[in-house]
């Protein structure tokens, strides 16, 4: 019968069942543990046991093309070289070329000629003449002429995404088919401007005309550059396939170049890590920082650890109590655990900042002081300001999509708790964070974390101006700080940059010292560019000035 029969006979297998159940749970975990190879704090199993995934073969079939597989986070906002102002610069830098490339700081020669072979400026700095390279063709067959350069620059100056870089330009004329002359409204370093990663690409006039007629001309993946690669196919949010442009003026026979470059658009660094481990990609441009240390000791990889343009800055809301008191801000600056933040936030890949200008970029100076963590001094300053033992609350906002900020924001909270300041961490998407900071003053945050970088290699005109110069409506000065002395120093320095660089530098240094002393913000660390390139790929060059671009043309299989 049913019922009672079902009930009683079960204790036997209930016991078995009960043994099996927790055992299953434990077994699942133990299986992983027992089989797990590495139990040392510094895992090196990728090096110790080269399996098919750790050392994938170069992707070439006997008859097929030589392909380089890259994983990048960069998606394409637009394929229009004039409008381009975002992450697609990674691809643009391989498809298009500017007049000149700026070299890394370590190279004695400041610039490398690209589409311009030589250039000079008049004595008053108001006229720049560029002589163009002969025999260069665009991907659509058009020849490179001075007229093409004129049209490209005019387009960039009027409707470009980064049009502001051409602010000094008055007129541009094609003196002869291979020479252009730029007339400026005021002296400005045009060679620097022409080397920019945004708004300085030289585009085929035929394409420019088509784009003027049809706004969406470029969007399906059409390109009209002079660069070594051209777009073979594009799947939005998924991949970009570049193939070599046979008519490239630089030629293809000096060494083995890659015929094709397949870039998988992978926003998650974890996924990129997996692709590298699994052999799905040769190069991963955004490996998770937590994991990248293991490649240092891996003999199959070249470990790249270079300074970069990016730094982390914090803003204090100087319009609000108690942050309007400079002593409070200084106290809070002394309370920051700079070393721990670099150790944990940057996984050791960073150097403490001196002011908001990253090292290696004009007008950085090692004379600018930095704070070091000193909790006693912090407490003393707070007491002087009338807040003995702290006793106030602060809200700190940071970008939830930023892994580093997510890692080190809690350290700020921990440290401030030690001086009696209670911090609430509020992660939000960067755009939301920014909107809030620009919006209703009552709702604004107390502290704002941001990752910053200059648009081109002048952090005086960019960082120092954008971040701390006073402004009517806040844009990037999210400390809302208004200091006339600082404003004057920075404004004066900007006008001197093109003609009297040293004088400009001196003024900037004064401004930076004032900034550190008045502490409207926190200067955490300059980040580093860290990646691991497999040794079977040679030719990798890192250029501090082009943080979002990787150049594929110089890469080739090692021997």
């Amino acid at each position, binding site marked *: 019968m049913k019922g009672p029969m079902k009930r009683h006979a079960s204790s036997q297998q209930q016991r078995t069942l009960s043994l099996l159940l927790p055992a299953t*749970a434990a077994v699942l975990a133990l299986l992983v543990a027992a089989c*797990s190879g590495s139990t040392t704090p510094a895992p090196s199993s990728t090096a110790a046991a080269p399996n098919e*995934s750790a050392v994938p073969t170069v992707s070439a079939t006997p008859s097929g093309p030589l392909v380089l597989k890259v994983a990048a986070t960069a998606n394409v*906002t637009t394929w229009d070289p004039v409008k381009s102002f975002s992450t697609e610069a990674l691809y643009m830098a391989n498809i298009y070329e500017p007049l000149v490339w700026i070299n890394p700081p370590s190279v004695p020669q400041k610039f490398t000629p690209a589409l311009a072979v030589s250039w000079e400026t008049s004595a008053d700095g108001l006229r720049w003449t560029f002589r163009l390279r002969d025999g260069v063709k665009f991907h659509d067959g058009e020849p490179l002429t001075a007229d093409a350069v004129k049209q490209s620059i005019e387009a960039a100056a009027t409707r470009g995404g980064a049009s502001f870089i051409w602010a000094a330009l008055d007129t541009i004329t094609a003196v002869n088919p291979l020479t252009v002359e730029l007339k400026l409204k005021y002296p400005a370093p045009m060679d620097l401007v022409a080397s920019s990663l945004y708004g300085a690409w030289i585009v085929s006039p035929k394409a420019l005309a088509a784009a003027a007629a049809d706004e969406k001309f470029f969007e399906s993946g059409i390109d009209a550059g002079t660069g070594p690669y051209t777009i073979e196919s594009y799947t*939005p949010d998924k991949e970009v396939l570049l193939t070599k442009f046979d008519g490239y003026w630089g030629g293809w026979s000096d060494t083995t170049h890659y015929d094709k470059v397949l870039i998988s658009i992978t926003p998650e660094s974890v996924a990129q890590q997996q692709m590298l481990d699994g052999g*799905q990609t040769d190069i991963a441009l955004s490996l998770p920082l937590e994991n990248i240390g293991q490649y240092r000791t891996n003999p199959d990889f070249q470990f790249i650890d270079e300074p970069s343009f990016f730094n982390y800055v914090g803003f204090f809301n100087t319009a609000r109590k108690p942050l309007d008191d400079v002593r409070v801000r200084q106290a809070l600056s002394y309370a920051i655990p700079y070393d721990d933040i670099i150790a944990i936030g940057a996984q050791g890949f960073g150097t403490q900042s001196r002011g908001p200008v990253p090292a290696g970029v004009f007008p950085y100076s090692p004379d600018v002081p930095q704070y070091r963590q000193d909790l006693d001094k912090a407490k003393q300053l707070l007491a002087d300001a009338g807040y003995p033992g702290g006793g106030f609350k602060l809200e700190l906002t940071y970008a939830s999509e930023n892994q580093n900020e997510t890692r080190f924001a809690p350290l700020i909270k921990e440290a401030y708790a030690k001086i009696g300041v209670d911090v609430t961490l509020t992660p939000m998407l*960067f755009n*939301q964070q920014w909107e809030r900071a620009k919006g209703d003053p009552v709702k604004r945050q107390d502290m704002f974390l941001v990752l910053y970088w200059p648009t081109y290699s002048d952090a005086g005109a960019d960082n120092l101006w954008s971040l701390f110069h006073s402004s009517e409506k806040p844009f990037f000065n999210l400390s809302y700080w208004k200091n006339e002395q600082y404003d004057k120093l920075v404004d004066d320095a900007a006008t001197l940059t093109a003609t009297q660089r040293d004088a400009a530098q001196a003024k900037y240094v004064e401004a930076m010292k004032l900034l550190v002393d008045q502490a409207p913000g926190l200067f955490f660390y300059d980040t580093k560019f860290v990646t691991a390139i497999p040794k079977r790929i040679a030719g990798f060059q890192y250029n501090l000035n082009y943080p979002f671009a990787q150049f594929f043309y110089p890469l080739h299989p090692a021997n």
Partner: protein
Amino acid sequence: MTRFVVRRLAGSALVLLGLSVITFTLARVIPSNPAALYIGPKARPEEIERVTRQLGLDQAPPVQYLTYMRDMLTGDWGTSIGTKRPVLEEIVSRLPATLELIAAAMALAIPLGIVLGVLSARWQRRPPDVLVRVVSIVGVSLPAFWLGLLLQVVFFRNLDLLPLSGRVSADLRFTAPIEPITGLYLVDAALGWNWAAFVDASRHLVLPALTLAAFPIGLIARMTRASMIETLDQDYIRTARAYGLRDRFVTYRLALRNALLPVLTVVGLTLAYSLTGSFFVEIVFNWPGLGTFAVHSMLNVDYPAIMGIALFGAAAYVLINLVVDLAQAWLDPRVRLA
């Protein structure tokens, strides 16, 4: 039967309408400024203004909804803020990958679940039953994302048997490319007599499908077992046995067919589970389907995409329920007349 079908269809249509109101309302609650997201972090204020007008964000909500309904019915589901392409196109282009994953998981789970359930009922209170009950309760309790990670560690790192992630090896694209016909790699590879690709795609499918199948196997096994036990208890089964009909015939031919009816409902449930379950599995295995797109859209507050996916998922669920109901009605007259 026709009346039943018509009633159900009308009901489903009404539900879909209601769903669209929900998704639309949800999207308007989002506090961030969508126009700013559209352009990028260093956008200028004038650009934001222009895009606000372009996206129609400055109009009253009821007006926005009517426009939305008209757009939706004509296939215009808005433009994804993240990829700048039409949302419907994004969903459709990613659908085959997810479908393949779900299909593989179901192909694994349904037969396996039913077989386990039947065996468990047949040998009630004996070791097979115990084993199946362990497996099924573990299956419904396991977090899918955790299981996926464990499988990766064991089968890729430790045993080096199966690939870590992705749908197909990157090299294959150049050595043995799959001609896209259906978007389902196994099918396309088979149609193109592409053995290398078929094997490669299958190997990539194993772990994700296994991960996604765990919950359905558990659920289906449990339901089949319960249903079989109940059916085997019925009078007509006992009568059949009393008449001397063979045991195997009684179990598998008589009881099973009737026991499977409630299992159909559970299959529908597991299909629905797989819709959202696949999101997590896809993230873990970097599977380029609807799931990764959905999660990224949610994290980036890409509200046209989120709205589109939510509506699509719900519509798919309504469709599944409709099919399950109709199938049940067709198979079981009692349902039709209820």
